[in-house]
């Protein structure tokens, strides 16, 4: 798939503001290529640099060094071409309290240089269930509605690339599902989507690829499926017929633990490994005279992978 967005050697050091604030290195030599039509999830803890990265691509923050290319256009020297392709839904809800919903959304379209198109604005508003609020003042909207308004503003100018900076923060479960569907629908219509989130579940559900950023460094970019396979460990739980007080010495070679008060024997193994050791384990368990009623396997979620990665000390 062709690249639609390319970030090369991007660094950002926020200038110091004496006396209170020292200089801060928020991004360290980030390289990232986004493929046309994919959904890319940027995951990372608070303060990792996600918003900074997005803000540089969109032209809100100036990079200290590095280069951003949008659909072949440099985002500094050819900012018109670059920015006209991008829609941004920022993390914070910045809105004009006194304007009407309709005017606020139409304003965004005009700002991007597009001629008025009431039919398109109406469609966007209907898709986001904002239509019945079109004449309301923005200040009368609830938090979740404001979030949708921000999305409507970004979609009003028909972007090819959509940035969603924590789109589902403060959004209820129902609405979150709606939003995921909306994002899938957008992707189906050819829009490339880059989202940041704290909800691993969201990345797992939505993304084709996942990037993990921490302390300004993009430490990993991987197909979601490959990531889960590569880093995932699986657990095999044996539900025992009778309670076990301790793991017999004959099984000490295995990575075993007791759970559920001694009625579960849990074996952790690596799916990366050539052999999982399951066959041998089961034979040795039988030889030790342990009987089990049932077996169960569990795959680690992206969340567990994520936490594991961040815990790992980096060179």
């Amino acid at each position, binding site marked *: 798939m062709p690249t639609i967005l390319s970030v090369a050697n991007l660094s950002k050091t926020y200038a110091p503001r004496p006396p209170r604030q020292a200089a801060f290195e928020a991004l360290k030599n980030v390289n990232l290529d986004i493929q046309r039509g994919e959904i890319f999830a940027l995951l990372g803890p608070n303060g990792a640099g996600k918003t900074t990265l997005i803000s540089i691509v969109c*032209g809100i923050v100036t990079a200290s060094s590095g280069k951003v290319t949008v659909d072949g256009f440099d985002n500094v020297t050819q900012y018109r071409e670059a920015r006209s392709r991008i829609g941004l839904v920022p993390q914070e809800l910045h809105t004009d309290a006194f304007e009407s919903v309709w005017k606020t959304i139409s304003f965004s379209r005009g700002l991007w240089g597009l001629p008025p198109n009431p039919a398109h604005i109406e469609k966007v508003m209907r898709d986001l269930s904002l239509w019945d609020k079109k004449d309301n003042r923005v200040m009368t909207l609830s938090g979740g509605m404001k979030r949708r308004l921000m999305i409507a503003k970004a979609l009003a100018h028909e972007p090819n690339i959509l940035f969603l900076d924590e789109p589902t923060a403060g959004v209820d479960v129902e609405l979150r599902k709606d939003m995921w569907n909306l994002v899938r629908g957008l992707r189906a219509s050819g829009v490339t989507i880059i989202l940041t989130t704290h909800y691993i579940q969201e990345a797992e559900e939505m993304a084709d690829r996942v990037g993990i950023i921490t302390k300004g460094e993009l430490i990993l970019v991987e197909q979601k499926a490959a990531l889960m396979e590569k880093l995932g460990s699986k657990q095999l739980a044996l539900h025992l017929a009778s309670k076990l007080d301790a793991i017999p010495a004959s099984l000490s070679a295995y990575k075993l633990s007791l759970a559920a008060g001694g009625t579960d024997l849990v074996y952790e193994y690596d799916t990366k490994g050539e052999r999982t050791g399951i066959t041998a384990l089961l034979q040795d368990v039988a030889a030790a005279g342990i009987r089990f009623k049932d077996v169960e396997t569990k795959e680690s979620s992206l969340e567990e992978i994520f936490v594991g990665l961040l815990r790992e000390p980096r060179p």
Partner: protein
Amino acid sequence: MTAAMNVQAVKSIYRFEMSRWFRTVGQSVLSPVISTSLYFIVFGAAIGSLMQDIGGVAYGSFLVPGLVMLMLLTQSVSNASFGIYFPKFTGTIYEILSAPVSFVEIVLGYVGAAATKSVLLGFIIMATATLFVPVEIQHPLWMLTFLVLTALTFSLLGFIIGIWADGFEKLSLVPTLIITPLTFLGGSFYSIEMLPEPWQTLTLFNPVVYLISGFRWSFYGISDVGVGVSLGMTLFFLGLCLAVVARIFATGYRLKS
């Protein structure tokens, strides 16, 4: 979208700003109209009757161009500074910064709207003045030229202040500390010939003198300094403000980190 100029964006910003003004047009127009009326009652009717004519013009009529300028300057600065400060304050500036618009377009939209409001207000105040004193406009085209140029220049200045300000106090600091004194001392209420030396010479360093003088000439054909000098100085200040704004956008000063 590769057009040389994003005209649609300029229109959008302009309309947005104008609609913000019209939403509160009562307050926006009423307070300047009330304060000019007060000036006419106090200085024109009460004190003015004791004053001699200046250059053959009755004091009440002499006041009109000065008062229009006073309102024009303060309203241009406050409208334009608020117009750009507000999106910074609420955070909606993110959208302007991420849109495919150049600084020229941003300035045209915001400053154009602020200047339009000031010019409209100028007309309203002139109309108000005719209720109190006779007003004559000898050179209407020049009057309009000075009106528009001054509104533009001081809207630009307001725009710069709005970008520089990082709190509401700073927004009103420059107007009260600089603009109002310069206007009061710039011959709004008197001819600078009435000042003793060295004040008469010192006053020539006050840019507002040139604006008021040129503007008053377009009304009554009397001026403190030559009309050409007035026009030249007005254009010079306009250019200066433009240069500062261009510099702000080139460096991203206080708009981008």
